[in-house]
């Protein structure tokens, strides 16, 4: 389905997501630090980390194949491509066929797969461990995310994220059906898992027992590691953007430059709200044991299933 969103705006939105991604991580870390009574690093710290990493040399394991080099580029590319599908400053479908929410989830899954392949390719024990854990969690998260998307898509009759956001933009909170509440609850349960945060994963640690995502990055270094980190920042903001597009009632509005700026502001507010939510969750819960994660995600699954069932029945 095509609309009237030009290519230029889609590219601008993609750029905004990539540029703001590290900032969201910085803000979450700052809030966490303040909640722990620490001063914490500035909110721009992730940018400094990225710049530092991009200027460094690369060290590679002897066992890694030539494919290992291209992994960070591929992961970053798929994640950024997923970013093109998220409506940021303007709702409504783009003027050319681009892909829908399922495409977005597929691209994120592809990025996850490539990350795991890279971790296995390097031959390190931690990488393999991290990859196997990530692949254990992923099948529990992705279908549930799809069910949440379907639940919203059923009401609107389209899986195009732009149309979903437009619909949500015009609907007031009282127009929320019961299924919307359940879907949002499922989304809130899933967000920490999809963005690799406590209680499912711990982004701050390099301790072997607790890491999922970090374990897969251990073998990367220099610009490659920079790309992987940028990819995970982008993945986080893309996931938050997906949640915002699916559920938050203040949709991107207007046309012209002021409309775009207004859309950008509302988008920033929505992302900020979700980031504060993630920081609060991360500060108030302990990381779950790996074997308890399926039960935690099971709650999300049940909520998403009920939301879908309520739409159909």
């Amino acid at each position: 389905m095509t609309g009237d969103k030009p290519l230029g705006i889609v590219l601008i939105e993609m750029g905004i997501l990539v540029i703001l991604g590290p900032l969201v991580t910085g803000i979450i870390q700052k809030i966490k630090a303040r909640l722990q009574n620490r001063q914490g690093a500035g909110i721009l710290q992730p940018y400094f980390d990225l710049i530092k990493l991009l200027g460094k040399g690369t060290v590679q394991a002897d066992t890694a194949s030539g494919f290992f080099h291209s992994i960070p580029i591929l992961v970053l590319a798929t994640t950024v491509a997923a970013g093109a599908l998220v409506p940021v400053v303007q709702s409504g479908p783009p003027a050319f066929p681009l892909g829908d929410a399922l495409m977005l989830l597929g691209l994120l899954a592809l990025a996850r797969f490539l990350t795991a392949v890279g971790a296995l390719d390097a031959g390190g024990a931690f990488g393999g461990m991290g990859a196997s854990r990530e692949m254990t969690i992923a099948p529990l998260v992705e279908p549930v995310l799809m069910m949440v998307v379907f639940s919203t898509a059923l009401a609107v009759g389209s899986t195009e994220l732009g149309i979903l956001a437009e619909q949500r933009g015009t609907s007031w909170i009282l127009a929320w059906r019961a299924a919307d509440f359940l879907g949002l609850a499922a989304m809130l349960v899933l967000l920490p898992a999809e963005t690799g945060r406590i209680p499912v994963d711990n982004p701050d640690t390099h301790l072997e027992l607790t890491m999922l995502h970090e374990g897969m990055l251990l073998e990367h270094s220099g610009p490659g590691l920079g790309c992987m980190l940028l990819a995970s920042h982008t993945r986080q903001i893309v996931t938050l953007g997906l949640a915002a597009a699916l559920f938050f009632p203040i949709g991107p509005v207007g046309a012209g430059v002021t409309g775009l700026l207004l859309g950008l502001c509302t988008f920033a507010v929505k992302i900020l709200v979700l980031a504060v939510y993630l920081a609060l969750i991360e500060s108030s819960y302990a990381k779950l044991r790996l074997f308890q994660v399926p039960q935690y995600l099971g709650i999300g699954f049940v909520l998403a299933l009920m939301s879908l069932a309520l739409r159909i029945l």
Partner: protein
Amino acid sequence: MNIEIVHAVIDDLGALLLFTMIIIVGASQISRAIYAVAFQSLFIAIAGAVLAMATGNVDLWVIAGITLTVKAIALPWLLLWAIRRMDVKREVEPVIPDLATLTLAVMFVVMSFHLSASLGSVRQAISGNALPVGIALTLNGVLVMATRKTALSQMVGLFASENGIFFTAMAVTKGMPLIIEIGVILDVILAALVMTIMVLRVRSTVDADIADLDRLRG
């Protein structure tokens, strides 16, 4: 108040009730389940207030108030007090795996929606999805009672089940006679007191929970 808005609000409260119910079924710590049941009662009190505004029935205001004070504040406080007294830090002990319980819970929810969809004209008279939500809460409360080993978690299940019956009754009848509601509430209070005392007594005399009682031989 517009009848459609009332239906929408009751629907949304029903969704929140189902959400708290899933938290109760899936909770791995008993205190979390107790907070969830407290919130469930709070939502029911809100539903009562909304219905009272819509119908102008004064009894419903009284019922909402009683629900708020007794079920959302007093009973959870009693349960939390019992937990502190017994020093239970343990997680809830399920009889069957948690995921199996969650699956059963979903099946109950889907089943009650499916069943009440077949009621047809009867359903038209009832506000929104209140009937299936109430049935689902009742069945899931029974599920919690059946799948937990400790007495306190079973009490949480009983309260959730009672909440379901209460919600159904309130939404279906647009307010029962006040005397019946008060009788029901008194029943619940009495049951909670007796059960708490029983649990504390059993714990202090034989240092066992009720799951161990089936090993008693005369």
